[in-house]
């Protein structure tokens, strides 16, 4: 496999993720909620500069229309990759839907941020050659490009995963740990989080972890696991330098996401799919392209070869 195939798999996976998310979102039901409670965020405010647009957008007809249109655009983008304008319109449409979905609540959904940022990267760099679903499924094709441009593009996609994990690790270690005596990792903080998320009404309804937490050994293991996951998040950039670290990181982070499903009813399945697509396939030739100052230092220290 080469970089073009991996990049194409990621782009098509992103489109499939958004098709599923948009298809499942009861977007048109937002038309029932009062218009005065709509609070678009950040760049989303541009959408509502003209106040009349609110009453136009938040109608069942328009919301249903944009939902179906975006799904059709996503499907077309899977099959027609040479029409760059088509992908641009698709990403724009997905972005508008994301703004609408988030305009009625007070929280960002971190699960979809990586998927959104990656789509924006694909839209900003349209010169990257992409294979359609048809081309990907066709056997015996000869694609021979592992140029620097493609490895740099893959690096950008990796950063979208690495940076949020690193920031979260940094936030926990510095602001949650360092400034608070690290009680986050040995006190009852994790138990409180598990209790809270297990009892709160959510899409997933697992609530057996509070009982398991009563077992002292299990509670200790969970706290140790929490610290290990946080350290893995903080040092996520190591994925780019060491093949061994990448394997350990993937083997810890993916089970961590599965455990949060059962312990906290939180499942970032989009991130799990993107981690698999980015960090488990086509890895053989990538480390030599991910050369940076960090790799140079690690080599000098003989930590890596």
């Amino acid at each position, binding site marked *: 496999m080469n970089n073009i195939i991996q990049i194409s798999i990621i782009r098509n996976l992103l489109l499939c993720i958004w098709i599923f*998310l948009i298809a*499942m*979102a*009861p977007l048109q*039901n*937002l038309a*029932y*909620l*009062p218009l*005065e*409670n709509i609070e678009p*965020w*950040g*760049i*989303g405010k541009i959408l509502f500069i003209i106040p009349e647009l609110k009453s136009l957008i938040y109608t069942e007809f328009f919301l249903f229309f944009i939902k179906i249109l975006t799904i059709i655009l996503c499907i077309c983008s899977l099959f027609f990759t040479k029409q760059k304008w088509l992908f641009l319109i698709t990403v724009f449409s997905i972005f508008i839907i*994301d703004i609408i*979905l*988030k305009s*009625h*609540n*007070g*929280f*960002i*959904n*971190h*699960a*979809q*941020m990586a998927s959104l*940022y990656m789509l924006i990267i694909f839209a900003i*760099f349209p010169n990257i050659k992409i294979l359609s679903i048809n081309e990907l499924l066709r056997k015996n094709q000869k694609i021979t490009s592992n140029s620097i*441009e493609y490895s*740099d593009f893959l690096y*950008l996609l990796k*950063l979208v995963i*690495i*940076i949020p994990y690193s*920031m*979260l690790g940094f*936030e*926990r270690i510095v602001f*949650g*740990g360092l400034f608070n005596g*690290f*009680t*986050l990792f040995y006190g*009852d*903080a994790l138990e*409180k*989080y598990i*209790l*809270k998320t297990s*009892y709160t*009404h959510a*899409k997933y309804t697992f609530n057996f972890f509070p009982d398991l937490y009563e077992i002292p050994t299990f509670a200790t293991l969970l706290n140790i696991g929490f610290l290990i996951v946080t350290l893995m998040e903080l040092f996520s*950039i190591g994925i*780019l*330098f060491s093949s061994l670290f990448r394997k350990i990181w993937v083997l810890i982070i993916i089970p961590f996401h599965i455990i949060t499903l059962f312990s906290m009813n939180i499942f970032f399945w989009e991130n799990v799919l993107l981690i698999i697509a980015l960090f488990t396939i086509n890895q053989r030739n990538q480390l030599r392209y991910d050369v*940076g*100052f960090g790799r140079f*230092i690690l080599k000098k220290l003989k930590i890596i070869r």
Partner: protein
Amino acid sequence: MYIALRILLYLIFLLALLLISKGFRLNLKMKAFVIIFVVFLSIAQGVIGDRVFYPFVYWGMYVSPNPSPDFVEYTIKDVNEIESKYPFEILSFSSPRALEYKLYDLIKACECENSDPIIDKYISSMKDVYSKEIDKNGFIEMKINYITIDIGTKELQEELLYTWNSNSNNPN
């Protein structure tokens, strides 16, 4: 001052990540993108609670060493007096919890226990969606409780925040 310090710390951290990887060896267009991405993420990370920088947002899940084990519960009663929890998934597939907090924010803002026109209108519209998606009869009552979990006994202590009744609170 604190916000500026946070932004600066994050900027240094993220620029260091770019330095040790190959962030500064990219071509000009990619480098410009990465730097804009990192600067905006750092600003958004510093300005906690404010989402003016969307789609750049604060990342800080499960950071507090002393979280409060409490939550808000939305219990509805149907025409047969059967109680259940309001299914927020009919309003939002990907982030139902966010909508729960949206309604809680409205209740906190009004500091009232019933008969607030804004909240009643919101709950009435939630009832309309419930009638469309779940039960055409809708629901006749919604009780919003603030639940505190006793960490020692695991007992739930309820505090009634707001009551909506279809007969007395219908804004229409």
